[in-house]
């Protein structure tokens, strides 16, 4: 099937992204962003995060609306399961970041996507967070992401898109590299 006459449209405004890249390379101070989230305890292990404001391009910015995100733990943890487990939200963050990258890179390479599905799995040994075995870390043993992509492209082109999206992904970097975390009590 040839779709050569139809312009590739994955819904990503690549021209705007490339313009921003060009502009920010000349004004690195405008490239300094601060992302924020606030989180309030509801009850038990249930909490609700709200995300709206952030800083970038030299000034305060706002999402069009406030987004809220409930997090809790499942019933096997003796919790009420009012939301996804925080570690699952981390997986969702990774998947969304990589998938946004897949769409952007494909657009930039003039490749039409038809469907993109990521399936994520992360192993965890609960002996870590429960303090049973100090040799076991709290976090994931590893994360596996499996992409199922239908696109007007060869397998190698699709693999190259997925590889490039990892290379440019913020969440992938956050997870694969150490980050200093400072937690204070106000």
């Amino acid at each position: 099937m040839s779709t050569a006459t139809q312009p590739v449209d994955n819904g990503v405004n690549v021209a705007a992204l490339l313009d921003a890249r060009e502009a920010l390379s000349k004004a690195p101070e405008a490239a300094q962003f601060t992302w924020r989230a606030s989180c309030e305890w509801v009850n038990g292990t249930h909490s609700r995060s709200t995300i709206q404001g952030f800083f970038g391009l030299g000034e305060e910015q706002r999402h069009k609306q406030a987004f809220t995100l409930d997090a809790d733990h499942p019933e096997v943890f003796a919790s009420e399961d009012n939301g996804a487990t925080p570690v699952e939200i981390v997986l969702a963050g990774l998947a969304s970041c990589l998938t946004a990258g897949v769409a952007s890179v494909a657009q930039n390479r003039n490749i039409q996507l038809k469907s993109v599905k990521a399936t994520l799995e992360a192993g965890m040994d609960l002996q870590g967070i429960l303090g049973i075995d100090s040799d076991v870390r709290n976090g994931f043993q590893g994360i596996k992401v499996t992409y199922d992509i239908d696109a007007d492209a060869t397998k190698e082109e699709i693999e190259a898109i997925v590889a490039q999206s990892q290379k440019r992904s913020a969440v992938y970097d956050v997870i694969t590299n150490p980050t200093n975390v400072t937690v204070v009590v106000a």
Partner: protein
Amino acid sequence: MTGATQATAVILGAGHAGLAMSRCLADRSIDHVVLERGEVANSWKKERWDSLRLLTPNWQSRLPGYRYEGDDPDGFRTMAETIRYLERYAEVIDAPVRTQTTVTCVSRRGEGYEVKTDRGAWRCRAVVIATGACSIPRLPGFADALPPCLDRVTPQQYRNPDQLAPGGVLVVGASATGTQIAEEVHRSGRPVTLAVGEHIRVPRTYRGRDIEWWMDAAGVLDDPYDAADNLERVRSLPSLQLAGSDDRRSVDLNHLRELGVRFVGRFAGIRDGHALFAGSLRNMCALSDLKMNRLLDRIDEWALQAGLDGQIDPPHRFEPTRVDASPPIDMDLDSGEIRTVVWATGYRPDYSWLKVPVLDRKARLVHDGGVVREPGLYVIGLPYLRRLRSSLIDGAAADAAFLSAHLAGYLDGQKATDQSARASMKV
């Protein structure tokens, strides 16, 4: 105060690039001098390890008016042979080299430049920077946080494995330098862990021909700088994973794995005396394999069009880089497992003596294919300066030809401007 010596042009550095430029200026009868902090081919003499051989075959180091004429065109020069090759070139072209002359300051002086050295000053109308890309080892910001019990060495200091203490060695970086050092250090009985970030895998030979022959013939080396998708990126890529050897072996990660070298991700930081490695090793290897296969695709396409198919070995692909399911991401640096860290993390040029405002915010020289925006100032001998080939000794000929023509045009224009200024003053 003694007066400055005059020259039309001053070339800084008597390596292959500075010498090629000298030859091209001489061809145009532009009087000049080549200032060299040490001797001809200085960094090849003093800043390379013993076993290193050129990554490019003997036939390939073509310089203006000079080429290999020995009986082993496909061999790889040792350091002694590389030094001799460049020394002989300096003799053949009778380059006006002032050795043991360290430049301390280059600044604007009227319409031209003043070049101060530890052996007097020069005044000139044009300056060509040929001091190279590998002046200062570029270490990560956390390098100083290595525990004091570890020895550390840069490739400029490294000579051979015997120089290192017995015990484990962490080699950081998997370019040509990192993989070659990892190979010989591991073979010396010091178990090597190689920290692998972005790297470029290529086979030494493909379809029976050297990879450099392919890249030369298929025009890959002539990819121009102004067509690069992301010039800053291609100029900062690590060197190809290549070694020059008699058995023409590839030094990719699969080869090192067979020797027993262990792999970890990019060295990302040090915390509480532990080295932390990025969890991105698999993707780094995937990117590198994909990039290699794109190069081989391009070569195959060219070979087909050139009518080579049927005459030479058929196209094939190499085994993908093998990666452990869960490479270590943490290593206790106080455990004694590692005794030495080799920082094969690249270099940066040294422009501390350059007092002309032509550096960007990251202290990189801003230039357009070797033409610096300050009139009369040029640079040669940097990676991807005008084309991919610029990274090689073999790239200096075309770059020097272009830049010497540009420089001559600049001098002519300046002369014309001077004459018209003088003429208008008379009126």
